[in-house]
C-alpha cells in the first residue's frame, strides 16, 4: 500500500477531531484528545502506544461502545460516507458486527461459556440476517472454520474445550461471518504464546488478502506492527503523535517519542546497536496530563514552546504526519522568557 492511494474514495473510516472523556470520582480524564485518523480500505493499520495512552478507548469509540462513565464528547466518525455519531443507537447496533467487528484480548473470556461455538456464529448471523435459515448459517460457519484451519467438529464444542489460539480464530470467524469491512483487534495476541501469535498473524494476513477486510491492530507490541502492518499510528497520552507507512516510520522516525520507543524495543537479532535506549520518566497519568505537548517532560529535544502550546498533527511529507514543534514553526518558538499567547 503505497501512499498514492490517499484519494478520498479509498478512505474507509475517517475519524475527525474525536474526543472521549471519562468522568469518574469527580475527575474528568480526556482519554482521547482531538484525534484525527484516516483508515484506508484494505490496509492493516497498527495503532501502537503504551498502557494508559488511550488506544483501547479509541478502538471502542470507533464502535461507539463507550460505556458510562466514559462518553464521546466531540468529533465525527465517518465510516463509508455515513456519519456514525448521528445514528440512533438502534441503527448503530446494526452496524456492529456487520460493518465493523472487534476481537478482544483474552480469548478465555470472550466466548459465552454455556453456549456452543456454532450457537455463537448462528446467533450472530441471525441477528443481522434474520431471514437466513439456520442450516445456511451453519454452512457458512463450517466454511469459515475450514478457512481458518479449525476442524469442523470443533463447532459443537463448548468454549472451554478449545485452546487459546483456536478461540481467537473463532473470534476472527465471528468477525468475518457477516464479511465486515473493518476488524478492530484490540491486543488480540497479547495473551497468546509467541508461536500461536505468529500463526494468527499469518492467518490475519491471508484473510486480509482473501476477504479484502481492513484491520486496525491495536497493540503495545511494536515488533508485531513491524511484521504485519502497512501503516503505523503512534499514540501517546490520548493523542496521535505520528502516522506514516511502517517502512518510513521505522527507518526514519520523526517524533522524539517514536525515536526513543523504537530504540527501546528489544530485538532478538544481534546487530550493532546492543544498548536499549533508556527513556527517562514514566507514561503520564491522564487525570492530570502535563500542559502543551504531553511528551515534554520526557523529551530530549524539548523547547520552551513545548511546555505551553499543544502542536498540531501536520503533514510533514506525503502520507506522513507528526505532532511536534520540531517540524512546525511558530513566532515564539525559541523565546523561553516571554509569556507566549496561547
Amino acid at each position: 500500500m503505497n501512499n498514492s492511494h490517499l484519494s478520498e474514495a479509498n478512505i474507509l473510516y475517517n475519524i475527525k477531531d474525536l474526543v472521549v472523556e471519562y468522568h469518574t470520582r469527580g475527575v474528568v480524564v480526556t482519554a482521547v484528545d482531538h484525534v484525527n485518523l484516516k483508515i484506508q480500505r484494505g490496509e492493516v493499520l497498527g495503532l501502537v502506544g503504551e498502557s494508559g495512552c488511550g488506544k483501547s478507548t479509541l478502538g471502542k469509540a470507533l464502535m461507539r461502545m463507550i460505556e458510562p462513565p466514559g462518553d464521546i464528547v466531540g468529533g465525527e466518525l465517518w465510516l463509508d460516507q455515513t456519519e456514525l455519531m448521528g445514528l440512533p443507537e438502534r441503527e448503530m447496533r446494526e452496524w456492529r458486527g456487520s460493518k465493523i467487528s472487534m476481537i478482544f484480548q483474552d480469548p478465555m473470556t470472550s466466548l459465552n461459556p454455556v453456549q456452543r461455538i456454532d450457537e455463537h456464529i448462528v446467533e450472530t448471523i441471525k441477528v443481522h440476517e434474520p431471514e437466513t435459515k439456520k442450516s445456511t448459517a451453519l454452512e457458512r460457519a463450517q466454511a469459515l472454520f475450514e478457512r481458518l484451519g479449525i476442524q469442523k467438529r470443533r463447532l459443537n464444542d463448548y468454549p472451554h474445550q478449545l485452546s487459546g489460539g483456536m478461540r481467537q480464530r473463532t473470534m476472527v470467524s465471528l468477525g468475518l461471518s457477516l464479511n465486515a469491512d473493518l476488524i478492530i483487534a484490540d491486543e488480540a495476541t497479547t495473551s497468546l504464546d509467541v508461536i500461536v501469535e505468529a500463526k494468527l498473524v499469518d492467518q490475519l494476513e491471508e484473510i486480509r488478502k482473501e476477504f479484502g477486510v481492513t484491520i486496525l491492530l491495536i497493540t503495545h507490541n511494536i515488533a508485531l506492527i513491524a511484521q504485519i502492518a502497512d501503516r503505523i499510528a503512534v499514540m501517546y497520552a490520548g493523542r496521535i503523535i505520528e502516522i506514516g507507512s511502517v517502512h518510513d516510520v521505522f527507518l526514519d522516525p520523526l517524533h522524539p517519542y517514536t525515536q526513543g520507543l523504537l530504540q527501546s524495543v528489544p530485538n532478538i537479532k544481534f546487530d550493532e546497536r546492543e544498548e536499549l535506549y533508556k527513556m527517562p520518566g514514566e507514561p503520564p497519568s491522564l487525570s492530570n496530563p502535563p500542559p502543551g505537548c504531553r511528551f515534554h517532560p520526557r523529551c530530549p529535544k524539548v523547547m520552551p514552546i513545548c511546555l505551553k502550546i499543544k502542536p498540531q498533527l501536520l503533514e510533514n511529507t506525503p502520507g506522513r504526519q507528526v505532532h511536534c514543534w520540531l517540524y512546525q514553526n511558530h513566532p515564539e518558538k525559541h523565546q523561553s522568557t516571554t509569556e507566549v499567547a496561547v
Partner: protein
Amino acid sequence: MSPGLRRYIVVRILLTIPMLLILVTVVFFVLRVIPGDPALAIMREGASEEQLASFRAATGLDQPLHIQYLRYISGVIRLDFGEAMKRSIPVTEEIKTFFPATVELAMYSMLVTTTVGIFFGAYAAHRRKTAADYGIRISSIILYSLPIFWLGLMLQMIFGAQLGWLPVSGRLSAGMTPSPEETITGLYTIDAVLTRNWVLLKDALLHLILPCLTLGLVLAGIFTRLTRANMLDVLEQDYITAGRARGIWERVLVYRHGLRNAAIPIVTLLGLQVALLLAGAILTETTFSWPGLGRLVVQRIYDRDFTTLQGTIIFFAMIVAGVSLIVDVLYGFLDPRIRY
C-alpha cells in the same frame, strides 16, 4: 452422561451422608448437653422427684448418653423419630399429617421469591447505577429487614380486618376440608386440580395469598440481591462486551446470555433458600395459624416436648440436604464445564 459428571454426582451423594450424620449428632447433643436437665425442663410444673425418675425411665433419658445416641441414630435411619412426649403419637405420624401444609406454603412462597427476585435482580443489574438500581437495592434491603410475622400481622390487619378481601388464617374456610379419599397428596391445590374440585381450588388459593406473599416477599429481598450480584459479575465479562460488539440486542445479552450464566451460581444457592424458607415458614404458620409442621413445632415448645422438636429439626435438615443435593446435581447439568 460423561464420566466427569457421573463422578461428580456420586461424590456429591456420598458427601450428603456424612453431612446428615453430623447434623443429627449436633442436634442430638445440643438438646442434651447444654446445662439444665431435659426432664426437669419438660415436667416443669413442680414435678416431684419420682415423677421425674419415671419420666426419664420411660423416655430412656436415664441411659448413658452413648446408648441413647445409638438408639436414636438407628431410629432416624428407619425414619422413626421416637414418640411425642405427651401424646404418644409417633413423631413420624405427626410429620406425615402436618408436613403437606408446609410444603404447599413453601412451594408457592418459593414461586413468589424466585419470580420477584430474578426479575428485579436482573433488571437492577441491567440498569446498574441508575435510580432503578438503587431503588431496587434499598427496597430489597427493607423487605428482608421486615420481621415476617410483623408483615403478616400488618397484611392481616389491612387486607383481613379492615378491607376484608382475603381470608386471614387457616388453610381453608370452615367445612371445606376434602374427605380422606379426595386427599391424594395432602396439598389442597394439587388435590383440587386432580379431583377437579374448582371450589376447593379457589378457596385454597385465596387462603394461600397472604401467607405466601408474606414469606415470599421477605425472602425475595435476599434473592434479589443475590441475583443482582451474580448478574453484575456476569455482565462485566468480556463475552457480553464481545456480544455487544457483534450487534446483539442489549435485552438478549442481559436476559438470555447474562441470566443463563448467572443462573448457575443462583441455582446453587437454592439449597440455602429452602433452609431460609422452612425457617420463615415457622413464623408465617404461627401468624396465619397455618396448620403446618412449623406451627406444630411452636406449639410443642410450649409444652416442652423436645422429641418432636428434635424429630422436626432433623426432618427439615434432611429436606434441605436433599434439596441441595438435587441442586448440586442440577448444577452439573447446567454448567457445561462440568459436564464435559
